[in-house]
Structure formats: C-alpha cells, structure tokens
C-alpha cells in the first residue's frame, strides 16, 4: 500500500514537471512564431533542421529526374520560388522607395542584402568575368546550406548550389535584369565547398545598360 501511494506521488510529480516543461517550450515557440518579420536579426533557423530538410529536398528531386542536369534544373526551380518571396521580403525590410534596375546595383543588392538575410554574412566576392562582359560571378567560400553535403564521385559534376543559383536568378529577374544563373563548385585550399554563382545576363539587359551608359 505504501509503495502504491509512493508510486502515485511520483507519477504526480512527474506529470507536474512535464507540465512545467510543456509550458516553457510552448512559451518559447510562441515567442519564435510571433516574432515580427521586420526584425531580420532575430529570426534564425537552426542549420541542422535546414540541413535535414534540404537533404530531403535533394533526395526527393533525385528520385524524379533522369540526370544530373535535370536535378540541377529542379533545384534551381525550387530556389526560384524561394527567391521571388525573398525579394519581396528584403525590399520591404530595406524600406527603400525604388527598386534596383541597373546591373551593378542589382548585383550589389544580391551580394549584400540578400546574402545577409539568407546566410547572415556578405558573399565573399563579386567579380566580373574577364572573358565576357555580360558574365558576373558571386563567390561564397563556405555556403552554409551545403555544409554537410558530400557529392559522391560518380556525380562529381553535380553542384548542390543550384538551389542558391535559383534564388539569385529569381531576384535578378525581379530586378528587371533577367539572367541565366548557374552554380559551380570550385574547391580551393581548405574550402572544399567553395561555390561560384555565375550570372550571364540576357542580351537586352546589356543593350539597355549600354544605352543608359551612353545617355549619361
């Protein structure tokens, strides 16, 4: 009998502590969910959680494509859906009155504002291609979204950064500078995931740039 009441008391205590725990977590998750979207510094997502989700996106896409190019195209498309929304959000957060339309301003916008919102840092470099005037490169030495990904040797041409290039492509289009965006893994010393996002702007964009340049 004594042991029974003891067990009961124990169960009660256990339930109470559970309730306490529950209250605490729900309070915390409420805080997270009810945060204001305008405060970009506070709303961070766990990288681990994102890594699992992203891995599942890649696996899901991989089962529905025929080749590596198809897979990249699919990831690019998913990235574009993110990019369109990301653009809207960063424009609203930046509270600027006008939208960038010149190529260079667009690139700087992507390089700084977008990268800071997505990865909490600026991209590591922004360069113009020496061979073609209409090609620009954004380099990230360690893209956070790819941190845990190792591409197997038989798929060595696959660049998981296609997701990021999709985001960039959508934003460039929203800025009235449509471009063909691809991503390439270019490993450097100690940076196996160094990714270069290559933007090749459409011909009419470059023509417009020239006209604007001449009109100045």
């Amino acid at each position: 009998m004594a042991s029974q009441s003891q067990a009961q008391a124990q169960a009660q205590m256990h339930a109470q502590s559970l309730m306490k725990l529950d209250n605490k977590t729900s309070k915390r998750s409420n805080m997270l969910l009810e945060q204001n979207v305008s405060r970009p510094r506070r709303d961070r997502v766990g990288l681990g959680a994102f890594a699992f989700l992203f891995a599942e996106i890649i696996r899901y896409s991989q089962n529905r494509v025929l080749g590596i190019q198809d897979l990249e195209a699919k990831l690019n498309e998913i990235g574009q859906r993110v990019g369109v929304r990301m653009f809207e959000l960063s424009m609203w957060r930046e509270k600027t009155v006008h939208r960038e339309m010149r190529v260079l301003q667009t690139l700087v916008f992507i390089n700084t504002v977008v990268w800071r919102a997505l990865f909490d840092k600026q991209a590591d470099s922004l360069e113009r291609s020496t061979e073609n005037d209409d090609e620009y490169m954004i380099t990230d030495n360690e893209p956070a979204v790819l941190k845990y990904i190792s591409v197997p040797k038989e798929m060595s041409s696959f660049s998981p950064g296609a997701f990021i290039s999709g985001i960039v492509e959508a934003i460039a289009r929203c800025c009235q500078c449509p471009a063909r965006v691809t991503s390439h893994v270019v490993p450097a010393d100690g940076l196996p995931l160094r990714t270069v996002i290559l933007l090749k702007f459409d011909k009419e964009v470059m023509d417009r740039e020239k006209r604007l340049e001449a009109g100045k």
Partner: protein
Amino acid sequence: MIHALFIINRSGGLIYSKNFTQQVAQLSSNEALIFAGTFHGIHALASRISPAPKRDSVKDTGIQSIDTKNFRIHCYQTPTGIKFIAVTDLLQTKLSGALNKAYTLYCDYALKNPFYNLEMPIRSEMFDTKLHQLVQSH
C-alpha cells in the same frame, strides 16, 4: 594514438573502416566484415553474461575495451546501437570522449548528407576529412 577506426551499424554490418597509421595491418574487406560481425556478436553476449543485477538503470552495456599486450580496442556504443570501435596503443585508457566526437561527426556529415543511405557504408569526403582532423588532433 588512434591506429584505426571501425563503425558498425545496428545489425552488425560494417559501415566504415579506416586505418590512420601504417602500424596496423590492412584487413581485407572480407576480414573487416567478419571482424565487425564477430565483435557485434561478442558484444551482445557479453552484456548477457554480465553478473550485474538486471535493473534498467545499471544494465551492462557490454564490452568497452579489449586489452592485448601491445594494443587496445575501444568500443563506444551509442544509445541507438551504433558501435564506434577504435584500435589504439596502450597509453589510451579512455577514449569515449573522442569516439563521442566521432559520433557527432557521423550525425552531421553522414546523416545530413542527402547522398547517404541509412545503414549503408559511409562514403562521404567531408566525413573523411573531419574524422582525419579529429584523429590528428587527438
């Protein structure tokens, strides 16, 4: 000094094996598989024959290390049943810290890698490099 590391999955299959020094013989893949299977079996039996009282809180976890004259085999079993086995020299008395770190690497660089299939051999460059760094720093 850690000479070699093995990872055995829940069902006793070898999913990773790597030598870090030249001092240990390179097992053929067949031998390595037999080693993994045998160790898995002995480990399970060892926890069965334990004379410790069978209460959940003090349940014996099986073999933690095997000593020989020249080297020592350490085993760290995760709560989920994956075994990390290290072959070291006799100076290493306790290796659970380092093996726990290897477990962290497994969780990060194998499980979060979209190209890794559960319970299958680990083929991940990132995992290799990080594990190498861990062994070097140890």
